[in-house]
């Protein structure tokens, strides 16, 4: 029943390495590694910024870099990707400014916190679980109607498979043979809810059977394996054979978000057993074993990544908080309804509330969710 787990990278010990696929040149392998380090550098820096109160609640993805960088690397430039909040920084690998993503977490809107999806073929960050999957299907379906060789890929978690939108998207995609890839990051947790409370199936890949869709399982901590299964799925999609469901099996090593304290609901000993499998160090060791990368090179790539992000942080902090008019911007593409001018007038008639500091770190006992728990101070 359960498809076996596709894996390339061994443990440099009992589990042997597999040679990288033909199609991946050494240059490709180094580039994928560079992408991993960029995502890692962004994530670690963002957590620090939140602790310092310089951005708001942040959904970290430490350890999930392979499930993000590798599938994207398998995409053509014309392909669209649809991230959830967990893949919030994916755009930086498609030319979105890291400062823009950080500004989004700082609570900035308008042109500061959002990007133009068409420019990068990266959809906006999706917050309501699973609701972006029908968009990825519709986009791929549209490309099919236009007979253009464009595919789409959506990321979502194990918990998302419980939502009705997941089901409807999977069904639509298989019925119309939409060229799309469902990339499910099974990190085994939905906030505090473990996978066994989410589904009765042993694996998530099994669910693809309900749609006569191939269901693939891959080691979510293995960038090469994630690249390969995605590449095959995209080739299949472009060949007109329809969608594929990929379950990237891994573990949520970090907290759900900076407001979450996993000690409340899981034994962190288990987490520590998974930590050594995290993809960035594992990829580095693999590439060194393969002789594709020298230790010094690797350090340097890391350095560059950290510098790129440091630069983005400076940029982000150089942005002034958007003015009040931002409330009324871009709500309608066709123009502003009359109530907007009245609203702005009402606002301008009063002095503006003081600058907002995102709330700082909070006591573990306070909450486990998406936001810092309100202090109750009213603006």
């Amino acid at each position, binding site marked *: 029943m359960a498809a076996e787990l596709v894996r390339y990278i061994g443990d440099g010990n009992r589990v042997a390495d597999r040679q990288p696929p033909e199609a991946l040149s050494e240059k490709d392998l180094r580039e994928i590694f560079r992408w991993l380090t960029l995502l890692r550098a962004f994530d670690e820096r963002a957590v620090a910024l939140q602790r310092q109160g310089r951005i708001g609640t942040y959904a970290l993805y430490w350890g999930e870099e392979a499930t993000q960088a590798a599938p994207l690397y398998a995409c053509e430039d014309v392909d*669209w990707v649809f991230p959830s909040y967990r893949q919030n920084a994916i755009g930086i690998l498609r030319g979105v400014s890291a400062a823009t993503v950080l500004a989004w977490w700082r609570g900035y*809107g*308008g*042109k500061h916190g*959002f*990007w*133009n*999806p*068409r*420019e990068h073929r990266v*959809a*906006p960050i999706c*917050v*309501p679980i699973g*609701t*972006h*999957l*029908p*968009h*990825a*299907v*519709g*986009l*791929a*379906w*549209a*490309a099919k*109607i*236009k007979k253009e060789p*464009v595919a*789409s890929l959506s990321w979502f978690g194990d918990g998302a498979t419980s939502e*009705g*939108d997941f089901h*409807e*998207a999977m*069904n*639509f995609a298989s*019925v*119309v043979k939409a060229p799309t890839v469902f990339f499910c990051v099974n990190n085994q947790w939905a906030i505090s809810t473990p996978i066994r409370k989410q589904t009765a199936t042993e694996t998530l890949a099994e669910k693809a059977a309900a749609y006569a869709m191939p269901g693939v399982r891959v080691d979510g901590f293995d960038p090469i394996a994630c690249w390969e299964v995605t590449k095959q799925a995209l080739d299949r999609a472009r060949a007109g054979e329809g969608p594929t469901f990929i379950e990237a099996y891994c573990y949520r090593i970090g907290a759900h978000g900076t407001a979450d304290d996993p000690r409340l609901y899981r034994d962190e000993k288990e987490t520590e057993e998974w930590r050594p499998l995290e993809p960035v160090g594992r990829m580095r060791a693999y590439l060194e074993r393969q002789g594709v990368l020298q230790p010094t090179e690797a350090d340097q790539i890391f350095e560059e990544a950290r510098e790129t992000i440091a630069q983005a942080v400076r940029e982000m902090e150089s942005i002034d908080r958007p003015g009040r008019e931002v409330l009324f*911007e*871009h*709500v*309608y*593409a*066709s*123009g502003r*309804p*009359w*109530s907007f001018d009245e609203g702005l007038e009402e606002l301008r008639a009063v002095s503006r509330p003081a600058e907002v500091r995102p709330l700082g770190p909070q006591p573990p006992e306070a909450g486990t969710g998406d936001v810092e728990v309100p202090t109750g101070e009213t603006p």
Partner: protein
Amino acid sequence: MVEGLNLALTQAMEADDRVVVLGEDVAQTGGVFRVTAGLLDRFGEERIVDTPLAEAGIVGSAIGMAVYGLLPVVEIQFDVFVYPGFEQIVTHAARYAWRSRGEVPASIVVRIPFGGGVRAPELHSDSPEALFVHVPGLKVVCPTTPTDARDMLLAAIFDPDPVIFMEPKRIYRAGREEIPEEPPFELANGKVDSDLLSRARVLRTGKDLAMISYGATVPLTLSAAERLAADDGIEATVLDLRSLYPLDVAAIIDAATSCRRVVVVHEAPRTAGLGAEVSSLIHERAMLELEAPVIRVTGFDVPFPQFANEDDYLPSVARIMAGAKRVLEY
């Protein structure tokens, strides 16, 4: 009205191959109400699609198509069945422009045949328009004549923003009229006449009473106005709102101030319905010019009844006149 809608879809699909139609039973049979009849033969099954039975999937797919650059028109089979797609409309269709620097609006039209009076079984007669009017980022319109249906649907399709297109199914086949073949604006150049999605229409002018309505209660309101004129020599201005969001506040205030007495009529339940918004706007801006408070004649705060009692629920000419009298005799 059905022929106007069908003509609009035909002309839009003819003029621009970005226009596609999605829905349940829309292609093979032309829809439960035959609004999409003939489109399959003319444009093929890639551009008009019988989808699986799943409203969130339909609306969500349409949003994705719009992101790619198409202009999808979704048909919801009956009012109530939009609720499974409500999440997609509120969190995505309404916010995609806002979330994309205004560069990628969810340029979709969601057509919703709504309201009662057709002797339908339970849960086929809701009037949910106020729910959408309260959601920022949407446009909500409601035509009442065949020509308006054609013109407003064309505008909705080519307008970049998401439009909730409310179709009063009770008058789908009422008020037959010649629809001018000529579209109301040049479809090719993509410049929509925005008045079509923002302006009310004055159907009758008088100085004694302003009667404001939209949808299936418009013809009833007109009959009430005629009766008032015939029986009591009361001359009423009758306003068909047409655009429910944004509201044509200028036309509303104009009617209110020139008549000094106002009755608002709609079929949806009263509490937090559109009548409340119209009433508030008028009082806020023109209370001192009123001889009486704005009176609402609406559906009641109850589930839409089984159809043997729907005529008890629906505002009737008699109830509208009674409301008018209350304002006039205030």
